[in-house]
C-alpha cells in the first residue's frame, strides 16, 4: 500500500511534466495544425541553454530567466518564422517531417557543441522529505507537481478568463470568422508558439535534475507527451493535462506491477485501446475545427 502511494506520487509528478509538454502539443495543433515531433528536443534544449549561461558565469536564477527567454526566442519565435510559416503552405505532413528533421538537428548540435555525456543539473526544489498521511513524500515530487499545476492553472485561466485567451480560442477554432470580427489571428498564433516555448522550458527545468541533461533525453519525453496528448484529446487543453497525468501514473504502475521491460509498451497499448473505442481522446471533442 505504501508502495502504491509512492508510485502514485512519483507518477503524478512525472505525469505533470508530461502534461506541460502535451499541452504545448495541443496548443500548436489547435492554432496552426502543427504536429511538432521535435517537442521532446524542445524540452531537452532549454536545460542546455541554462547550463551554458551558468558556465558563462551566471547564477542559477539568472540562468533560468535567460534560458526561458532564449527558449521563447529560439523555440517560439524562430521556430515559427523560419520553419513553420514557410512549410505550412505545403501542408501538415511536410511540416511534421520538417519537425522530425529539426529534432535530429537539435539533438546532434547539442551533442556536437556540448557533449555526448550526461551533465548534472541543479534542482529548484530542495531535496528532503515531508510527511503526508504518514507517508514520507519527497519535496522534489511535491515541488514538481505544484509548479506544473500552477503553470497549467495559469494557462487555463488565461485561455478562459481573459479577452486575450478568448481571442486565442477564437483564432484556434475558426480563424476566418475570427479575422472578420477583428481578432489579430497571426499574433494569436505567435502567442501560442511563445507559450509552448515557455511550457517546454519550464518542463525542462523540472525534469532535468531527475533525468540529467543529455542530448537524447528528449526522445522519451516527446513520445510520452505525444501519447498523452492523443489519449487525453488532441484538441483540448484539459485533455492533454489528464492524458499527461494518466500516462505518468500508468507508466509507473506498469513498471512496478507488470514489468520494467514492457513498461514502454503499456502506454502504447492504452493508446491503441483509446483510439479504437474513443478516437477523439478521453476528454476530446470530435474534430470541429474549420480551416
Amino acid at each position: 500500500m505504501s508502495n502504491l502511494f509512492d508510485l502514485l506520487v512519483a507518477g503524478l509528478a512525472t505525469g505533470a511534466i508530461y502534461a506541460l509538454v502535451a499541452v504545448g502539443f495541443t496548443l500548436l495543433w489547435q492554432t496552426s495544425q502543427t504536429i511538432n515531433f521535435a517537442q521532446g528536443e524542445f524540452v531537452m534544449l532549454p536545460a542546455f541553454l541554462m547550463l551554458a549561461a551558468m558556465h558563462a558565469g551566471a547564477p542559477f536564477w539568472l540562468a533560468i530567466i535567460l534560458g526561458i527567454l532564449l527558449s521563447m526566442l529560439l523555440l517560439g519565435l524562430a521556430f515559427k518564422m523560419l520553419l513553420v510559416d514557410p512549410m505550412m503552405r505545403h501542408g501538415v505532413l511536410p511540416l511534421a517531417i520538417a519537425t522530425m528533421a529539426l529534432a535530429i538537428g537539435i539533438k546532434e548540435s547539442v551533442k556536437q557543441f556540448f557533449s555526448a555525456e550526461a551533465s548534472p543539473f541543479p534542482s529548484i526544489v530542495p531535496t528532503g522529505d515531508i510527511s503526508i498521511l504518514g507517508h514520507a513524500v519527497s519535496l522534489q515530487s511535491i515541488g514538481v507537481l505544484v509548479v506544473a499545476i500552477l503553470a497549467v492553472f495559469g494557462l487555463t485561466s488565461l485561455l478562459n478568463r481573459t479577452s486575450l485567451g478568448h481571442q486565442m480560442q477564437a483564432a484556434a477554432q475558426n480563424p476566418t470568422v475570427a479575422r472578420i470580427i477583428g481578432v489579430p489571428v497571426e499574433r494569436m498564433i505567435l502567442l501560442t508558439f511563445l507559450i509552448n516555448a515557455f511550457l517546454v522550458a519550464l518542463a525542462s527545468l523540472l525534469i532535468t535534475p531527475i533525468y540529467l541533461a543529455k542530448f537524447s533525453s528528449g526522445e522519451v519525453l516527446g513520445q510520452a507527451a505525444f501519447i498523452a496528448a492523443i489519449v487525453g484529446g488532441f484538441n483540448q487543453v484539459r485533455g492533454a493535462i489528464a492524458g499527461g497525468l494518466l500516462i505518468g501514473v500508468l507508466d509507473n504502475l506498469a513498471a512496478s506491477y507488470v514489468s520494467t521491460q514492457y513498461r514502454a509498451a503499456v502506454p502504447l497499448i492504452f493508446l491503441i485501446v483509446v483510439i479504437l473505442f474513443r478516437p477523439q481522446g478521453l476528454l476530446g471533442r470530435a474534430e470541429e475545427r474549420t480551416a
Partner: protein
Amino acid sequence: MRSAILAGALLAFATATSVHAQAIKLADVAELSGGGATVGTNWKNGIDLAIEEINAKGGVLGRKLEVTHADSQSNPGVARAQVQKALDAEPYVLLGPGYSGSVKVTAPLAAEAGIAQIMGGEAAELTQAGNKFLFRTSFGQQSSMPKVAKYIHDEMKAKSVAVVWVNNDFGRGGRDVVVKELDRLGSKVVADLSTEAGQADFAADVGKIKSANPDAVFVYLNEEESARILKELKRQGVTAPLMGETTLIGQKVIELAGDAANGARGHVGLTTDAPVDLIKAFREKFSKKYNYVPDHNGLKGYLAVYMVKATTEKMGKVDPKKFADTLHGLTIKAADEPGILMDVTFSETGDIDRQSFLVEVVEGKQVVKQVLPKVK
C-alpha cells in the same frame, strides 16, 4: 671517397637492421578516438611508459621492446580490421583493445594466428569461450562478483539483498554471478530488478526496493543510470547501504549524482588511489610524463607490458608460440617484478586473481576503505 661513403652507409644500414631485428615487436590496437578515446589513450600512455622504463634498463633478455599503435576508433569493425593488419606484421604479442565488444570480435583472429592477446575488456564471457590465447589485465565479472558477494555477506552483514542490474550482456553477466554467490553464502535476494540501458525514470524500481526492505542494495548499472538511481534512492529516502562496482562510484557518477553518491560503496579492481607504494609511484611517474592523473586503464596498459616482460623472462627466450602456455597458471610477484605492481596469478582461462579495493564515496571523493585479498 665515394666507395668509403657507400661502405659507411651499408654498415649503418646493416647495424640498423640488426638492431631492428633484435627488437621485440608488440602491436597495440586501442580506442584512440571515438567514444572510448579516454580508455584507449590511457591504455596507450601506460604502454609507452612501461616500454620506456624497460628499454632504459636494457630491455627484455637484452632486447629492446618496440610497439606500434593502431586506432580502433572505438568501433568493433575497425578494431577487427586493425587487428588483422597488426597480426599480418607477426608481432610477438598483441595488446588491446579495451572495449569488450572489440575484444570479442578480434580474439578469434589472434587465436587463429597463435598470438597471445593481452586486453582490457571485462565482460565475463570473453574468457569463457575456451580461447587459449586471451589474457585479462583486470578482473572479469567472475572474479570480481564473488568478492562483492562476500563483502555484502561478511562485512555488510546483509541477510537480504536487492539486486538492480541493467538488462544487457554486461549487466546480466554480473547479475548472474552475484546472485549465485549471494545464494551460496546465504544472503537472500529479495528483489531482482532488471532495468533498461538509457532508462531515465527509476521511481518504480526504487519503489520496489523500498517495499522489499532489504539490508543492502547491489546496483549494477552503467554510469549515467547509476547516477539517476542514486538520486532516486535518495529522493525516496532509501537508507539501506548501497554496494556496487566501479560503475557505481566512478568520478563521473559522483559528478552527476552529487550528494546522492555519498555513502555508496564499490569494489574496484584497479585504482590509482590504491594505498600501494608501487601504484603510488606509477601514478607519480605517469602524471609527470603526461601531465594528468591516469585512470585504471593507464594501469592496465602498463601492466600488459610488464606481463610480457615477466612471462618472457620466465621462458628465458622470445617465443611467441610458447608465450600463452607459459602465462597460464603463472604467478608474478611484485617483489620480483615491481612493474607488475601487485602480486598476480593467471588462471588457465586467462583470468586474473589479485588483491582489490573497497572504495566508499565520502563527501564527493573516493576513499579506499579496505584492501580485499586475493581469492586464492
